[in-house]
Structures are given as C-alpha cells and as structure tokens.
C-alpha cells in the first residue's frame, strides 16, 4: 500500500533533501578528490568540487603499482576471493546459528546468548597477540583460512539475525514440520527467504569490514602474495604520507577502495527494500 502525496510528504522531501545533501558531502568529496590536480589537492579549507579534472592520479597509482614486487592483480584477486567467501560464509553460518538461537530452546542457550551480547563490545585490535597465537597454533598462517575463519565469527550478524528470525511466526514452522519438512528444508525454504532484509543488511556490513580489513593481512600473513588490496593500499599510503606525490596516489586509491563499498551498498540495500514490500507475513 502506498500513501498518496500529501503536504506532509512534500515538506518532508524538501527539508530532507537539504539535510541529505549535507550528509552525503563525504561521498562527493571522495569522488571529486580523486580527480584533482596537485595544486587543488592541497587547498585549505578543502574544495568539494574539482575545477580541472585529471586522470593523472590514477596514472601515478598504476605506475607505482606496476613496479611492485607482487603484481597489483594478485592483491585484487586475494581481496575479491576473501570478500566473496567471507560474505557467503558469514551469511550461512550466522543464519544457521540465528535459526537455532531464535526459534528453539535448549541447554546453554541463555549462556551462549549472553556471550554473544557481551562480545559485541569486542574490538579485534585489542586481542591481536592471542589471536596470532591461535592462528599459528592451528597452522593457518599464509592460508586463506587465516583470512576467513576469524571473520566468520560475527556476533553482530548473529545478534541482528536472531531478532529477525524470532519474528517468523511459529505457526509457519509448525505447518512446514507437519508437511514433513526437515530442519534443513525449513531453514533453506522459510528462514532464509524471510530474513532477507537482515541478510542484506549484514552483507553490507560484512563486506565493509572484510574489504577494509588489514588486520588479518598484517598479523597472520607473512607472505606478500597472500595479502589483500586493503593492506597494499594502506602500506602504500603510510609509506608516502609525508611526500607530496603520495597525496595524488592516496586520493586515487581512496576512491578505488571506496567504490566497491558503495556498489555493494546500493545492490543490497535495494534488496532490503524490495523483499518485504509485498509479503505480509508476521
């Protein structure tokens, strides 16, 4: 059901657009910044719009990247592979956990739930050393498992999904069970489709975390060929921080790292809005 346009919506849209424009300044800046020639990069206060757009920044970045010992495409391949696997893994693992925690009662459930809640405060950077010990104890240094497995434990995703899964009516699951559906069928045919908005939301979140993550590359990967794009860009930038030429590359790299986030956000956020609009289940 869609409401007709009213004066309320009209006033809302106008004032809203102004505020939204202000909120989206960072995106505007990142995009414009990447195309600025050197003399514009150093203006203060920064200019949001580029005056004389140029592709020089990207040229410099690729020139620099082609001189590196490990080809640029290798970092890109690692990043894409890890991001894709982590996304699929987090969705599957978290939804499964949320299905059990959100719909059934069993021993230790309360304990597990409170551990999950508490671990939302968890910040990976504070426990770098113990994590390193565990990864190397399991012999996962320099493997893709070292990238993936720490990311699979995502209490935020599970916590969000529990909320959505618990809203699926019990009657629906009971009906499916009476019709002879196994837990796997219920899970794949009912739970996953009905929690699609939450899955889309955690996908956005997970992709952002994985794509920008440098911790696993820094701590668990000793071989350069196993490291990700985020790590490469980060080390490139920190090495060039004080040089004037570095700012050009930093601007271009900033855009390149930001674009995938933006694309994933647009794709998945659309899913959030589309899936639930026509289904009146609850």
């Amino acid at each position, binding site marked *: 059901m869609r409401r007709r346009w009213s004066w309320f919506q009209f006033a809302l849209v106008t004032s809203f657009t102004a505020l939204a424009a202000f909120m989206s300044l960072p995106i505007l800046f990142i995009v414009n910044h990447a195309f600025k020639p050197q003399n514009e990069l150093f203006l203060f206060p920064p200019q949001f719009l580029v005056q004389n757009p140029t592709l020089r920044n990207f040229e410099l970045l690729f020139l620099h990247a082609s001189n590196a010992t490990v080809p640029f495409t290798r970092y890109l391949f690692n990043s894409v592979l890890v991001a894709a696997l982590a996304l699929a893994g987090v969705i599957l693992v978290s939804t499964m956990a949320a299905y059990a925690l959100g719909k059934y009662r069993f021993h230790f459930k309360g304990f597990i739930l409170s551990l999950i809640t508490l671990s939302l405060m968890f910040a990976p950077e504070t426990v770098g050393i113990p994590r390193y010990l565990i990864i190397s104890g399991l012999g996962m240094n320099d493997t893709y498992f070292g990238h993936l*497995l720490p990311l699979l434990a995502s209490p935020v995703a599970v916590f969000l999904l529990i909320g959505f899964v618990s809203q699926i009516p019990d009657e629906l699951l009971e009906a499916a069970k009476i019709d002879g559906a196994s837990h796997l069928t219920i899970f794949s045919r009912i739970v996953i489709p009905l929690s699609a908005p939450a899955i889309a939301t955690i996908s956005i979140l997970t992709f952002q975390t994985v794509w920008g993550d440098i911790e696993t590359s820094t701590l668990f990967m000793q071989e350069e060929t196993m490291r990700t794009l985020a790590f490469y860009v980060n080390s490139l930038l920190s090495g060039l921080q004080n040089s004037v030429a570095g700012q050009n590359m930093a601007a271009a790299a900033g855009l390149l790292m930001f674009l995938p986030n933006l694309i994933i956000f647009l794709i998945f956020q659309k899913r959030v809005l589309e899936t639930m609009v026509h289904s009146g289940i609850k």
Partner: protein
Amino acid sequence: MNAGLATHRTTTSRGARVRRKTTLFIRQLRRDLFCYLFLAPFLICFLAFIIIPVFMAALLGFTSYDGFSGLRFIGIDNYIALFTQDIIFLTKAIPNTVFFALLVGPGGYLLAFAFAWLIHQLPLRIRDYYTLAFYAPSMAGGVALSVVWIAAFSGDRVGYVNNFLLSMGWIESPVIWLQDPKHLMNIMILVSLWISFSVGFLAMLAGLQTVNKELYEAGRIDGISSRLQEVFYITLPSMKPQMLFSAVMSIVGTLKAGSISVQLTGMPISPSYSGHLIINHIDDYAFIRFELGYASAVSVVLLLLSYFAMRFAYRLFGEKEETRA
C-alpha cells in the same frame, strides 16, 4: 519448541536422582542435537577467535606486563590502583565517558529512528538515495571526519565556522575550536551524532519493512488518528528486536568511541584531558606507556560497564519470553 523444561521430582535416593537427571539431560541434548549442529560452525569460530583471545587478554589484567620482559602476577593490584589512585581515570575518563555516552547514545538512537521512519515515509523509488546519503558518513569513515569537520572547525580564520562567524561580526578573533578544552567535548558530541546513522540505522530501516501493513489498516479502523499514535502503538511494538539491536549497537558504539578526539585534535591525548574517554585511557596505557596489564584491567572494567548498560536495554526492549528463558 518446548525443550529444556526441567522436571522436578522428589526422590529419596540422591544418587538415583542425579542419575535420572543426567540421563534426562543427555536425552534432551540428543533431542536438540540439530540445534547444536546448526550452531556448531559459528560457535567454533566464535570460541576460537573471540572468546578465548578475550579471556587470555582479560587474564593479563591480573599481571604487570610491559610487552618485553616477563609476566609478573600481581593479583588485583591493578584494579585497586585503578579505583583509588588513578586520578585521570576517576576525574576525567569516567565523567567524560558517562556524559558523552548519555548524550550520544540516546540522542543518536532517537535521531536514527526518526530519520529511518521519515525515510520510510518516502516513495519507494527514492528511498535508496536518502538511505545512502545518511549512511554516507559511516561508510566513508575517517575521511569524512577530516574533510568536513576538521575543515569546518579549523582554528584559523579560513575554517568554515570561524569564517562565517567573523563575517557576521559575531566574534572578533578566530576561535580555536579543537584545541580549546571548553569546546572539544561539544564538537565531539556533534560529530558523533553525525556519524550515528550506522548499522543500527540500517537495521531499523529493514525492521520498518517487516511491519505488517494490515496492522495500519486495522489500527485506523480501531481509531488511531495521528501518525504519532501509529508509531507508538503499531510500528514500535512490531519492530522490538530491531530496536533492541540498535539500542545495543549504540551502547557499544558510544562506549567504544575514542578515536574521534584523536582524529579531531590529531593528538593521542586531548588538551587537558577534555575529550578523554575510557578507550583513550586504555590506548594511553597500552600503546604509549606499555603497561599492558593495567590497560587490560581498564578494558575489563569497560566491558562490565557495557554489560550493565546492555542489561538495561534488554529490560526496555527484550521480548517477554526471553527474560523468562
């Protein structure tokens, strides 16, 4: 779905009772086996990469450790020192964090809900663009902070705010916004509110989608006249899990905040500790003074603090069944 019901029986023999309870327990475990199987992949990673490392780090709180020489076990001395001698912690970090969290937590939460709801009122086609605009500061991260706010509050006369105030004649000389202890906290709060449209905001938007549209029709028939009533009687009760989620996320977000003062001032410790939060205190001891044992003790205190704040959020939004279970 009615698993886990403990049966209480009075038996004369204690051994028999224990045995019966054990067999019942094992039978229940076996009946719920699929639950554990569904949980297993998550739980294994969760234990290995979060719980055990955190536990190991928490143990450090009982030691004196500088990262180089050996560990020295000192019992609860760190905690005693923290609550009796650490003046900065007691007079700056705690009050600052409480003040900051009380304003930014509920403030950002209400803002996120208000704007999620407003966006939800928009026609479907353009909703995405508004969502993107509001989510942009969280997505862009540190870049956003430095280009918008540092430039705005720059202490010289070209900073946007100073420039505006000077040209209007409201101030006579530029205000050093970010280095002045009087202003820093307020600016930190303003900036944090600006980036508070993060994952909780997205969850609320998704939650709004799941509210059954027929409820609104039913509500109108039952005499709901204004949109405000709709929000309170239909929207909010229908999206309790999402409200709980974002409440917890905003508690976590505000208590974990600490990088804002660092990014705004460019210094690890803010001028005369005016923006000093508990996280800054932890970073100070861990990465500047290398007293890792003491820093762990402070982290444990912060963790407990956040746990109690979350219990409070559960009281507000938790489902009735969950509190009983």
